[in-house]
């Protein structure tokens, strides 16, 4: 017996009735209806982790905010994707990200092509209210083709997921806890010495900032190409 097709549910998004498959997330439904919800860790073709909390939405009758990327569409749900409270939290999250590492757009390889920068611009962030931490991170340039700069990392784990889920190498992981978390290659060895890395470069392309970049790129030259990801995922599903 084949599994039953997911049912159709109807719920309210920003005061409007919308229909969705029961296995869809609120974020997916929002995108289908051209409702903009800011995201950072979410990327089509990768699993969702709900880590960055930028896609938080309000649910009528609940004091808790829920991340739209993992919140499943359910019958009778009533969500708001924009409110003063959400705007406030989203701004605060991006400001905290900016204060946590050393993000200097003007001299970054990803200047003008950066998800974090675009987010800050779209949220109207013209200054950061929190003191900068100015951590001291060395650049890992041990890989022949790519560079890892922790100063620009936002710990979205897109690199970890694409390497594990799509490439199947699981070279990347996260070490430490909380503010001391850090992405690592292998068992925290220099990237160039990692035996599992296949040098496929998927991690570089999905990285939202200039944390992972191709060697030889000068300031503002690193443009990420991500079209391969949904295409690759779809092809694999079809040929599974």
């Amino acid at each position, binding site marked *: 017996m084949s599994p039953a097709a997911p049912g159709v549910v109807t719920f309210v998004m920003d005061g409007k009735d919308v229909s969705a498959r029961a296995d869809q997330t609120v974020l997916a439904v929002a995108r289908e209806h051209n409702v903009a919800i800011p995201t950072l860790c979410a990327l089509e073709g990768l699993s969702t982790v709900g880590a960055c909390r930028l896609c938080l939405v309000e649910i009528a009758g609940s004091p808790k905010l829920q991340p739209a990327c993992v919140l499943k569409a359910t019958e009778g749900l009533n969500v708001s994707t924009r409110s003063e409270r959400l705007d406030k939290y989203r701004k605060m999250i991006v400001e905290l990200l900016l204060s946590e590492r050393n993000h200097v757009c003007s001299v970054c390889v990803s200047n003008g092509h950066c998800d974090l920068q675009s987010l800050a611009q779209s949220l109207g962030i013209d200054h950061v209210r929190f003191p900068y931490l100015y951590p001291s991170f060395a650049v890992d*340039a041990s890989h022949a083709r790519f560079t890892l700069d922790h100063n620009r990392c936002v710990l979205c784990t897109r690199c970890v997921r694409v390497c594990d889920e799509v490439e199947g190498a699981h070279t990347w992981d996260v070490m430490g806890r909380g503010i001391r978390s850090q992405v690592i290659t292998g068992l925290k060895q220099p990237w160039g010495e990692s035996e599992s890395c296949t040098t496929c470069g998927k991690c570089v392309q999905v990285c939202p900032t200039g944390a992972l970049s191709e060697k*030889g790129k000068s*300031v503002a030259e690193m443009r990420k190409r991500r079209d391969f990801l949904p295409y690759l995922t779809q092809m694999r599903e079809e040929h599974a």
Partner: protein
Amino acid sequence: MSRIIEIDPVTRIEGHAKITLHLDDNEEVQDARLHITQFRGFEKFVEGRPFHEMPSLMARICGICPVSHLVASAKACDALMAVRVPETGVLLRKFMNLAQIVQSHALSFFHLSSPDLLLGLDSDPAKRNILGLAAVNPAVARDGIALRRFGQKAIELLGGRRVHPAWIVPGGVSSPLTAENRDALRASLPEAFAIAERTLEWFVPLMPRFVEEIRTLGQFPSHYMAMLDENGRWEHYAGKLAVVNPQGKIVREIESARYQDVIGEAVEDWSYLKFPYYKHLGYPDGLYRVGPLARLNAAKGFGTPKADHAFAEYRKMENGPVTSSFHQHYGRLVEILGALEEMQAILDDPRILDTRVRAEAGANASEGVGMSEAPRGTLIHHYKIDDRGLITWANLIIATGHNNLAMNKGILQAAKIYVKAGKLQEGMLNRVEAVIRSYDPCLSCSTHAAGAMPLHIQLVAPGGAVLDELRRGA
């Protein structure tokens, strides 16, 4: 009792500075010091960065001459990559550097110095600026603005933006020139030529008015350093560094990578600006000058008709090297003409639209030096990298730094003449400032400072007590 006079801040220059004049017991000026009071630290905080980021990172040193830093830094990176930049890449880099020289010289001559020249050094300080000039002589002010716009627009057409284009990169430039932009650049040249020529026409006959300034503002024999092409002509991008003695003879010619053979660097605890000196003479005797004065003393000419004519007229002023710093204003006008002619020649070169403009490579050498002529003089970027291409050490010598000893000497010379009986007079302030301004120093570049540049003179007793003070806002 000896005293110190302090001028703080100094106005209409790029950056922040103060001057102290040290008087002896007879109220005679004994010493003069130009204090550069900000610290920036680029050489230190670039350590650990990938070298491919360096040109745009170093360009952030200055919003006036970002292109000069892009050029010198990219050349240092070319050396780290051990590549030969494609011909068209070189032509395009040269073109942008020339546009930078034109716009910066226009800023120095028209916006910063022409108020002194046309309104008089003793005119009302409140009106002695580009706006005061516009009220009295709108045609000159308009020309200044138009010429600067020409240079800035040329930079924008090549690099996409006027300030901090990230277009000059290690190995070449990031995108070729389009036919449309080439034509737009060509169309903008005639107006720039017209401005340069008519400015020389009104400025040269004005010179007799400044006999006193020419005689007293930074007028002394010295060594000079400048880049020259293989024929000994004016050069701003490639070529060797020439050392010229006070008699005008070239005594050394070295490859850029060997700059440390001739230049030593000293530091003093009262200024953040280093004191480079000519090693052969030691410190502090090894005073030398760079910039328009030095370039025009070192070069045989430009190799282009209009500039060569203007150059010949300029050199007629003295039998031998031109020694007064005041003549740098005149020198800038000659250089603008030469730059425009070279820009014209580059645009007429059939290779200019070639799309091969960049060489790609990783780290192939552990050390690289890049040298170019910035508007204010020779600019040197020197980097060392580890085997992964991360910067381990950086040294910069900025044009204003080369001129540090000369500026101090020029201030002392002016102060000795204009400070009488320990009295602080506005006329003296103006002249001391004018000496500095003739070098068009960029202190934000040279110390690596932030902020506007305003002048403060202090008179200080031997014990350090401030006896008198004059202060002027920006």
